[in-house]
C-alpha cells in the first residue's frame, strides 16, 4: 500500500486533516503528518518530513502532499537526503492539500500504485465546489 505524508506549515492543520481522513478510512492506509517545525513553530522541517516518510515507507512508495509553496522545497530536500534506492519511490503531488490528501488515501486504500495515487490527488485540483 502506498504511504502518504502530509506536510503542512501548521501542526494543527496537519493533525486536523489526519483526523478527518482517519475517520473516513478507519486507518487502513499508512498516513503520517509533518506539521510545523521541531521547535513547535509554524513552518516546515526537513528532518521531520524525512522521519515521517521513513515511517510509512515501503517499496510500494510514498506520496507527499504539501500545503503551501515553500513546503515543496523542504519536502524535496527531505527526499534528496534519503538513500538513493528509496528516493525513486517517493514523490510529491501537485495537489490541493485537503482534497488531494483525501483522494490519495482513498486511492491507496484500493491497493493502487504510486502513480495512480498521485493522479487521484492531482485530479482534485479540477474539482468545482459549486
Amino acid at each position, binding site marked *: 500500500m502506498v504511504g502518504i505524508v502530509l506536510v503542512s506549515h501548521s501542526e494543527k492543520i496537519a493533525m486536523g486533516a489526519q483526523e478527518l481522513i482517519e475517520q*473516513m*478510512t478507519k486507518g487502513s492506509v499508512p498516513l503520517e503528518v509533518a506539521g510545523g517545525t521541531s521547535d513547535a513553530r509554524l513552518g516546515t522541517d526537513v528532518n521531520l518530513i524525512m522521519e515521517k516518510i521513513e515511517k510509512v515507507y515501503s517499496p510500494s512508495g510514498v506520496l507527499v502532499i504539501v500545503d503551501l509553496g515553500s513546503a515543496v522545497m523542504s519536502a524535496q530536500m527531505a527526499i534528496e537526503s534519503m538513500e538513493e534506492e528509496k528516493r525513486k519511490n517517493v514523490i510529491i503531488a501537485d495537489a490541493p492539500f485537503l482534497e488531494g490528501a483525501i*483522494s490519495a488515501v*482513498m486511492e491507496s*486504500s*484500493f491497493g493502487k500504485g504510486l502513480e495512480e495515487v498521485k493522479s487521484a490527488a492531482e485530479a482534485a485540483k479540477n474539482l468545482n465546489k459549486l
Partner: protein
Amino acid sequence: MIVREVEVTNKAGLHMRPAAQIVQTAGKYDSQITLEKDCRKANAKSIMDVVAMGIKKGTVITIRAEGDDEKEAVDALVNLIMGNFDEE
C-alpha cells in the same frame, strides 16, 4: 450493464463518511461504476466526485455499473445505501 435506482434514506445524506463508504465499496470491484442524480454524474470510485454531488436524504440516485462484476457491485452499493450506512 446494470442500472438501479435507490433512495438515499440516511439522515445526513452522502456527507463525508457515507461517501467514503460508497467509494471504498465501489473500489473493491473492477467494473466502471457511476452515480447519477439529475444531470450530474460521479465516478463512484472518486471520493471528491461523490462528495461534490451533495446528495441529501430523500434523493433518488441511479447507480450504473459495467464490467465483469457489475451485478455484485450494484448489489453491494444498494445494500449499503438501503442499510443507511449503519447510521441513523
